[in-house]
């Protein structure tokens, strides 16, 4: 099963129907384990119970960047390889990524209030994540501004690739500008600085959130494919009802309609 096999939407739909329940189940189990471990994790000697916000905040923040990465690969798929499902993947990932980014910002500021004494600080990491959030919203606005999905797809792909510059900036902002947000403590040279009691729940939560993203993304892609099929069926119906009186044009319209279904 390669990526080109999945270019056929019907095959993709069949595959997702089979694996989605398993993915959803695995996500639920891992989330339950992760949440239980997070609740049972000891309080930090300095931060007290607020350290547990980290178990939600960090996976959300990772995923906010990971989803943009997925969208960038999908953008390459749209522009370079012309994969038929690439723009479906890019379009359905944007709202999910925006939600993860929003949750990362909210949980971060809830943690910041007791720890830093402020909900918001114009620190390099916070600002760059806020820009990421704005770019997600701009991308969603772009998708909504254009009726023709393939035209919107190419424009969104260019914007996604330009916006990808922000991802390394977010990642390294804590090293380049030594401001309020703490530097990386898990994926760093010389091993994680986090204690094992915190590291394990965090890793379980990270995997659970990644699975959550994959589940939501596949489901959203399914919905998008079905939505496009409905759209092309409606357009076919509209064109056939219009050409009912003038039968000469109906053949070419039907040809167009079936081509669109093939694409969808």
């Amino acid at each position: 099963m390669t990526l080109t096999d999945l270019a056929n939407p019907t095959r993709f739909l069949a595959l997702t129907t089979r694996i989605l329940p398993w993915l959803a189940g695995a996500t639920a189990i891992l989330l339950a384990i992760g949440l239980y471990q997070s609740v049972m994790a000891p309080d930090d000697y300095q931060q007290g119970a607020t350290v547990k916000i980290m178990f939600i905040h960090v996976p959300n923040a990772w995923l906010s960047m990971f989803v943009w990465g997925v969208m960038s690969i999908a953008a390459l798929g749209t522009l370079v390889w012309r994969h038929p499902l690439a723009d479906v993947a890019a379009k359905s990932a944007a709202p999910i990524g925006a939600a993860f980014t929003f949750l990362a910002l909210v949980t971060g500021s809830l943690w910041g209030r007791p720890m830093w004494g402020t909900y918001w600080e114009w620190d390099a990491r916070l600002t760059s994540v806020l820009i990421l959030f704005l770019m997600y919203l701009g991308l969603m606005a772009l998708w909504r501004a254009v009726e023709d999905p393939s035209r919107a797809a190419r424009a969104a792909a260019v914007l996604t690739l330009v916006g990808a510059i922000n991802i390394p900036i977010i990642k390294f902002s804590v090293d380049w500008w030594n401001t309020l947000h703490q530097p990386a403590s898990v994926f760093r040279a010389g091993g994680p600085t986090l204690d094992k009691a915190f590291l394990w729940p965090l890793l379980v939560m990270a995997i659970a959130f990644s699975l959550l993203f994959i589940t939501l993304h596949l489901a959203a892609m399914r919905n998008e494919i079905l939505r496009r099929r409905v759209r092309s069926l409606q357009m076919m119906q509209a064109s056939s009802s219009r050409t009912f009186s003038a039968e000469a044009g109906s053949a070419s319209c039907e040809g167009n309609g079936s081509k669109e279904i093939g694409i969808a």
Partner: protein
Amino acid sequence: MSALAALIRRDIRIALRVGGGALIGVLFFLTVTVLMPFAVGPDLALLSRLGPAILWLGALLASLLTLDRLFTADHEDGSLDLIVMSRTPLELACAAKALAHWLAAGLPLIVATPVLGLLLNLDGTATLAVALTLLAGTPALTFTGMIGAALAVTLHRGGLLLAVLVLPLSIPVLIFGVAASQAAISGPMSFGTPFSILCALSLFSLVIGPFAAAASLRHGLD
């Protein structure tokens, strides 16, 4: 090479003549700057403290306003199709158009800065610092804004959508432009650090902008 020079000359000529609207940007810049004292109150000490930020914001909005027409006018009269089809690489043509736009609409903003600095009670060093940072930073605004202009013309949508797409990309330029001006006026940071990052942002967008704009024109026009 001569094709690009001709393109630049043509764009500047169109921008400066009747209906071009390059100088409307300066007028808008002036109006925004004059509006600010009404909003924050005519306190001269406060105005001189906010001055660099006000000037940068005004320049950002003014360049965004004029960018809307960068490709649209050419698309309407059909010359954009000729540019896309011509033998000159589209990336270079985009860069030439952006350069012409910056010369016609960006440079007047910088020339106007000393006058507007007077209105905001900025002293000589502060005015010089703001003008220098604008000189280094406005190319970045033009070249990243060009990406939005190219997207807007392929989508037949302009105005607010362009602003929503371009403004997040211009935040780093704004941050380092204002930071460099403030550093020159009051310290404690040295002027060189944010200023060289600002120059780097401009050079970076000089590379990225034409490629992204050309890609979106190539894929978007039909």
